[in-house]
């Protein structure tokens, strides 16, 4: 019996101890007519047959060199990361409620909090939310708790559309509105109104925006401060090796920072599990959602770690909690922490610089082709939009045959024009990859 140890004698002895004669009798409080057998579930497979089925399905996916981004990136994952997070002691532990028996996980989270605080330039960070988008949703709610009189959030047009959809699904449940801020059609970046709407609690500032462009974060932060708004920075953590940390934006720095940690040691996984980052000012910590780990000590003064401020959480505060989140992304936190440790300040910067450099090379190579242009031409980190003279969807599909996932057509994100392709480049892209990409595009365009 897969995963069940009992043999017949053991089962019989246990039934005898309980005083029943068969297992079914243990279900005697459940009305008989409710009990059925799941006929529709297929029969089980041996481990061997199971492996074969999954391996066949995995082989059905072509292996692609990825130039797709839009929030998820094919960065290199240091080999130690999967090796370590697969260790049973991390993999099969529960949320660290019993601190003394969970020091491994607790210290990892404490280190993660520190890493994220330092990367973002913020004072405190939590132990993760589900993903970047849901972290942003939680940030909006937190802003509204901090500004209980307000009911809306200012959202730039070029926030990643999937993230915007999450806000649109969930904020209205609590009667919160998103008010969209226009973009400058030439520059592709936020155009600020003179005056913020009266019921707005916060301004979302995505640095990098959905077109891959860099925003003038100082100006945005200053405007938010002037308008009495909280600011919610949305960042891509690897870019922070090069870009200004939100804690240093404007004069005061951002109030809340969220982001998607996938770029830090987490595989693409078809979209998840990823890991939502969340950092803020220390004086806001009691309004923070999610789990927090603090350093503490035992009676002998030895240093250890434990969960703290649990009174914010649902298992204590129930309906009044700062969030309903319970299980979050522990193992992905572990992955990101180990990736950050493996790369170090040096490796992070190296990966960021190379991503940027190779992105520039690919852009230059593509712009070299006839009738290919860049619709918005501001500074970027590792992602940019190129406008092709043919449908980007068609081009993307055609390049699959070359083993290239060419990017994300803006049309699929509900943005831009038909020929617009959002292309992301990471440090894994070699010069040869760039040549291959260009050659493949050239071939298609010539047809």
């Amino acid at each position: 019996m897969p995963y069940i140890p009992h043999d017949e004698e053991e089962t019989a002895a246990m039934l005898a101890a309980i005083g029943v004669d068969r297992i079914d009798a243990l279900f005697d409080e459940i009305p008989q007519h409710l009990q059925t057998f799941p006929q529709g579930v297929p029969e089980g497979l041996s481990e061997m047959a199971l492996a074969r089925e999954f391996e066949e399905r995995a082989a059905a996916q072509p292996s692609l060199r990825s130039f797709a981004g839009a929030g998820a990136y094919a960065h290199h994952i240091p080999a130690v990361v999967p090796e370590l997070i697969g260790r049973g002691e991390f993999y099969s532990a529960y949320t660290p409620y019993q601190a003394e028996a969970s020091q491994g996980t607790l210290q990892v989270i404490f280190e993660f909090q520190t890493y994220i605080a330092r990367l973002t330039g913020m004072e405190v960070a939590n132990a993760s939310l589900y993903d970047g988008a849901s972290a942003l949703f939680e940030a909006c709610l937190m802003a509204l708790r901090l500004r209980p009189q307000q009911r809306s959030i200012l959202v730039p047009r070029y926030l990643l559309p999937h993230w915007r959809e999450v806000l649109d699904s969930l904020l209205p449940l609590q009667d919160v509105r998103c008010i969209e801020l226009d973009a400058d059609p030439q520059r592709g970046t936020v155009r600020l109104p003179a005056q913020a709407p009266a019921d707005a609690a916060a301004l979302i500032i995505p640095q990098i925006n959905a077109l891959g462009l860099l925003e003038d974060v100082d100006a945005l932060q200053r405007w938010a401060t002037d308008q009495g708004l909280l600011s919610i920075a949305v960042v891509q953590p690897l870019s922070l090796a090069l870009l200004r940390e939100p804690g240093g934006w404007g004069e005061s720095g951002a109030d809340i920072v969220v982001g998607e940690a996938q770029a830090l040691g987490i595989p693409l996984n078809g979209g998840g599990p990823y890991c939502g980052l969340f950092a803020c000012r220390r004086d806001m910590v009691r309004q923070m959602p999610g789990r927090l780990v603090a350093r503490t000590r035992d009676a002998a003064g030895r240093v250890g770690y434990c969960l703290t401020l649990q009174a914010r959480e649902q298992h204590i505060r129930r309906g009044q909690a700062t969030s309903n989140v319970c299980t979050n992304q522990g193992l992905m936190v572990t992955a990101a922490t180990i990736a950050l440790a493996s790369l170090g300040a040096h490796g992070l910067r190296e990966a960021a610089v190379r991503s940027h450099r190779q992105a520039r090379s690919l852009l230059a190579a593509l712009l070299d082709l006839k009738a290919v242009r860049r619709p918005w031409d501001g500074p970027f980190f590792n992602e940019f939009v190129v406008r092709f003279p043919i449908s980007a969807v068609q081009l993307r599909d055609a390049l699959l045959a070359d083993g290239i996932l060419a990017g994300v057509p803006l049309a699929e994100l509900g943005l831009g024009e038909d020929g617009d392709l959002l292309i992301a480049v990471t440090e894994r892209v070699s010069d040869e990859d760039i040549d291959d990409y260009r050659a493949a595009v050239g071939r298609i365009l010539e047809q």
Partner: protein
Amino acid sequence: MESIFDLDHHREPVTADLDIPAALCRQHPLDLPNPSELEVLRHYTQLSQRNFAIDTHFYPLGSCTMKYNPRIAHRLANLPGFADIHPATPAQAQQGLLHLLWDLQNGLAELTQMAAVSLTPAAGAQGELAGVAMIRAYHHARGDFQRRRMLIPSAAHGTNPASARMAGFTVTELPTRADGDLELAALERELGPDVAGIMLTNPSTLGVFERQIETIAERVHQAGALLYYDGANFNAILGRVAPGRMGFDVMHLNLHKTFATPHGGGGPGSGAVAAAAHLEPFLPLPRVQREQDGRWRWLGRADRPQSIGRLNAYAGQIGVLLRAQAYLRRLGRAGVKRVSSYAVLNANYLLKELQRVGYRAAFPQRRASHEFLLTVEDLHRQTGVRALDVAKRLLDFGIYAPTIYFPQLVPECLLIEPTETESKATLDRFVAVMAQIRQEALEQPELLKGAPQRLKLGRLDEAWAARHLQLVQER
């Protein structure tokens, strides 16, 4: 343990010619350490050894279903064919993955006897939020905007009221009878045109099966409200009783409990939602659809305009879903039923044996489900020893502590869930240890109050932590 921030070596900064305005760039170098690869590996390997985990310890943590997480599922979910897929990959280049997710949707629909499933919720709590948002959307779609109240038993998990609030509901708590079942009269009192629904776990977090479930469903439906099923305890009835048959309209499953995906020290989980036909249009997106031509694709807003929408940037915790599907496929129809059989056998055996050595059941007249509740109030009165002390002392014997002080309505309680993957020998050892602890409580209560005694650290001071609030490593 030293901190990773102590393992630093100076590295010359990478110089770079960036095509980014200086004003947008970082002014100071990143203040992060540069440890060597061996230092990283050694640090985190050593840290890992400071955890208790299923792979190393018995973990009878009630309400959490800490069962064995099959290693094959880990291997298969990490096949490059899955791990390397970018979420924006067009459907034609992810047919294998979509096929498996489709199989999982169907398997879960079958097991729950629901019409349709969405796999996107990232955890149980997000599944709850999705479910109650669907209840709201359902009422709204019928033009009924009055129903702003959600009924929840007081023994429910904290996520239930929190999720209901997040979906814009106010929460009314319902009392429980002394035998663990719901106070039916209270339910009837509360039901009315302002009630949107009720959230129930069955078996409940008291470790007993709600016997009046059909009557409850009838009353709730008569009042125009819907029933939400919190599937966290599904392990107790897997392959045997389907929430769809009990009268529930919508539910979530904790795949990281019943379907044996790992807890990872706090996630990722996965909280698939399943719904009866009348709630299908509202399920969160995306979902997998099989087309006429036999190919699979993601359903989007255009396909399901009434959907509550997207909960996360992408399609959910794919890596977790693959593990759940591997588990389901391995067990098959006979295997899933065995899960609940042996989970319940283990729980009832353990309850009986613990009673034999002197412990008190919170509901002695009831069958245990896959878990059961003890109370050590008697010990507390006699010796001052609390549930917390018993829990901490268990750690000294290499056994993780049960859930304590939950549900809050039973004083000094321990919620114990052995799961089906533990052997009789392990349970017998647990009983022996618990018997010894009881003896210790009576004879040397200070030993327990000072527990753990044998770990690297003694009992950690959580109050100190909250007072001093050191949340990051100082420089």
